[in-house]
């Protein structure tokens, strides 16, 4: 066979091979398989490397095993979580797209900016974790308690600054509500881009205080570089039982928690949604999952569908109230 002809034959064979391999299996020659018959994507609206995405991978791992199908974490980060949320809200409700429904993209962001989705576009399954927050200052700061800090701030308006990991975050809203209920304190806000930048700012003395997730500040606290003044939680922190909550000090409105659950776009057929719900409940309560979430710094909290719906509604109203009082509206 001449060289030209054998080249052509090779191309032809490769083409047919590709056709057979790629096209035929998807052309209805296979019969209906039960759910899940293809990989499920779990959309995480925060970047790779962050604790949210790692938590999502842990959930995805166990969920895969229980559903006997693969669950892949798909990172769609941006706009404080709004990009991922918008993507899921517009996806087909066939059960193959799930979302890490959280206090950022589904709690605060819709309240402070105009976004392309509403919480009613989602169908929540349940909550699996929470992130507790506390107010921290540098170790050698002169204030030993919140009262001392408030007194100083009142005497020296605009002298103190607080840091956050961005506008429209729970870190931001929490401090604003604190400033307002503590008597309209004047403490300007310095936004930073991420948790680590926040911590560095405090350690370096570039900002004086901030309200942040306990998990991100645990390291510096253990190293005696940062100190917690009060916890923005319902009950005292387990690891730091000597630290009062804001409620105990007289500011019960200062309560902020990050929360994380799983949701899907509204309209998933009942059999699929029941199957998902069942597997998710088991995943959220699985001891290994809870252990790993705790290691990452989350507090494994389980709320089932109904409980979570009620909780989210309450949180929405709380955020709306705070945003209105503190006049936080981005666009």
């Amino acid at each position, binding site marked *: 066979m001449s060289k030209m002809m054998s080249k052509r034959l090779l191309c032809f064979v490769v083409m047919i091979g590709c056709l057979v391999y790629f096209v035929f299996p998807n052309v209805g020659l296979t019969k209906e398989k039960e759910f899940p018959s293809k990989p499920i994507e779990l959309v995480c609206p925060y970047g*790779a490397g962050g*604790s949210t995405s790692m938590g999502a991978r842990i959930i995805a791992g166990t969920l895969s095993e229980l559903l006997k199908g693969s669950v892949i974490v798909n990172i*769609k*980060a941006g706009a404080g979580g709004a990009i991922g949320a918008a993507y899921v809200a517009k996806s087909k409700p066939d059960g193959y797209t799930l979302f890490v429904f959280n206090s950022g993209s589904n709690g605060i962001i819709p309240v402070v900016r105009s976004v392309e989705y509403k919480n009613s576009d989602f169908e929540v399954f349940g909550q699996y974790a929470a992130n507790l927050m506390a107010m921290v200052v540098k170790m050698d700061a002169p204030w030993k308690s919140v009262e001392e800090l408030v007194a100083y701030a009142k005497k020296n308006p605009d002298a103190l*600054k607080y840091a956050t990991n961005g506008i429209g975050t729970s870190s931001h809203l929490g401090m604003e509500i604190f400033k307002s209920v503590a008597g309209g304190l004047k403490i300007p806000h310095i936004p930073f881009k991420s948790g680590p930048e926040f911590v560095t700012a405090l350690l370096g003395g570039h900002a004086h205080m901030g309200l942040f997730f306990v998990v991100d500040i645990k390291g510096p606290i253990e190293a005696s570089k940062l100190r917690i003044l009060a916890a923005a939680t319902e009950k005292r922190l387990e690891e730091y039982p000597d630290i009062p909550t804001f409620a105990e000090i007289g500011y019960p409105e200062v309560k902020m928690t990050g929360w994380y659950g799983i949701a899907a776009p509204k309209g998933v057929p009942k059999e699929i949604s029941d199957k998902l719900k069942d597997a998710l409940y088991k995943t959220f309560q699985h001891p290994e999952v809870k252990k790993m979430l705790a290691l990452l710094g989350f507090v494994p909290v389980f709320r089932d569908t109904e409980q979570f719906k009620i909780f989210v509604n309450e949180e929405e109203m709380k955020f709306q109230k705070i945003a209105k009082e503190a006049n936080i509206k981005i*666009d």
Partner: protein
Amino acid sequence: MLELFSNLAYGFQVVLQPINFLYCFLGVFIGTLIGVLPGIGPVGAMSILLPSTFGVSPAAGIIMLAGIYYGAMYGGSTTSILVNIPGEAASVVTCLDGYQMARQGRAGPALGISAIGSFIGGTFSIIALMFLVYPLADVAVAFGPPEYFALMCLGLTVVAYLAKGSLMKAVIMAVVGLILGCVGTDMISGKLRFVFGISKLSDGINLVPLAMGLFGIAEVLTNIERPFKRIIYETKIRQIFPNREDWKRSMGPIIRGSLIGYFLGILPGGGSILSSFVSYSAEKRISKHPEEFGKGAIEGVAGPETANNAATGGAFVPLLALGIPPNAVMALLLGAFLIHGIVPGPMLIKQHPDVFWGVIASMYLGNVMLLLMNLPLIGMWVKLLKVPYHILFPLIILFTLIGSYSINNSIFDILIMIFFGVVGYVLRKFQYEEAPLLLAFILGPMLEQAFRQSLIMSNGHLSIFFLRPISLGALALSISLFVSTGINVFRKAREKMTQGYS
């Protein structure tokens, strides 16, 4: 001192255990691959492979993930040199001279110096890490918004040194870069800028597709204008390894690159990209023949490649000493530590010496493995260049398309890449350069952010920049560089004028 060596010996014991050795090798191998493939970077790979570390000891897992990180820095330069596509954001600068060297048939020496510089830079940063971890952590924390602002100013004055040709055109490109950097959400007020209602732009234009388009796609488009036979490396591939002249010229840049890279790597947000740009500009400034830069000067490859590897070691400083990750890769590594029940920070070295010293020893080992892996591959890479361009360029395009999609699973990123590829092509036609645009694009937003944060800190007083020693120093340096460049330009213009009269 003696204690240090015994600790290190302990670390080597840990890393030479078969499973840790294997994981180290896996890590650097995967890292190199990730670095070579344009688009997906170490963060993506590490996050996908994270679950596979759950079943093994913390030391093995961290060793592998760390290996992916610095391995990617080795591999990133390969495509930069061969086809002008930065495999990694930090390798953009290597495109400038590395690719030109390849066009002159000197791809081998470029790859060789790049691998060796990376090795020296990486090893240096590990040694520095061992000795200086704690004192440097305090330095890292002292850098607040005013210091960052001053540093960014310094970085932008360096834009002038990136220009091959007309300074005016470079400045124009820098301004365009600044404008492009504004696209997205302003982090101080939260307002959207230049987004035009496209929600995907609300986080700004993604750097990697932008770089891939401006450098890689634009290059392909420029090349396919000409008849295929005459493209690719008109001269024969002359050498495979660097010659003595190359070594002599590279020694200085490598030493300086190591220092620059390490110190800039410590700063959160700084890292490998900034260090490679600064190293390039520093080398051009110091060089006795700056005209060669941009046309294949080996210093332009040796310095930046060393710097970006040295930066990886520097990036470990805040993580290991304070538990603060200075970039996304370290953040992921932090998570990996946490999942294994280890809290990095000052306690790490006491509570888990096997992990700390094991990881440090593994970095030495990993760098050696990478050198041994990359050097023999040079011959293979160089042969790749002999593939006829009409087969090569569709493959290049294919890889860049897949690569840009893989970053965020987004078609939009592909569109960005193609758009800027066309833009880059047009720019080249008019002899505008991409490098100043890219540098300004990266530094501009950081500068603005730091400036405004500083003003909040000072309640609006500009004096804050001059009252703090580090920022004062960096600003003074920027101003003097700016003035000296200005004087040079002025002098050259005067010469031209007087020439016209004689």
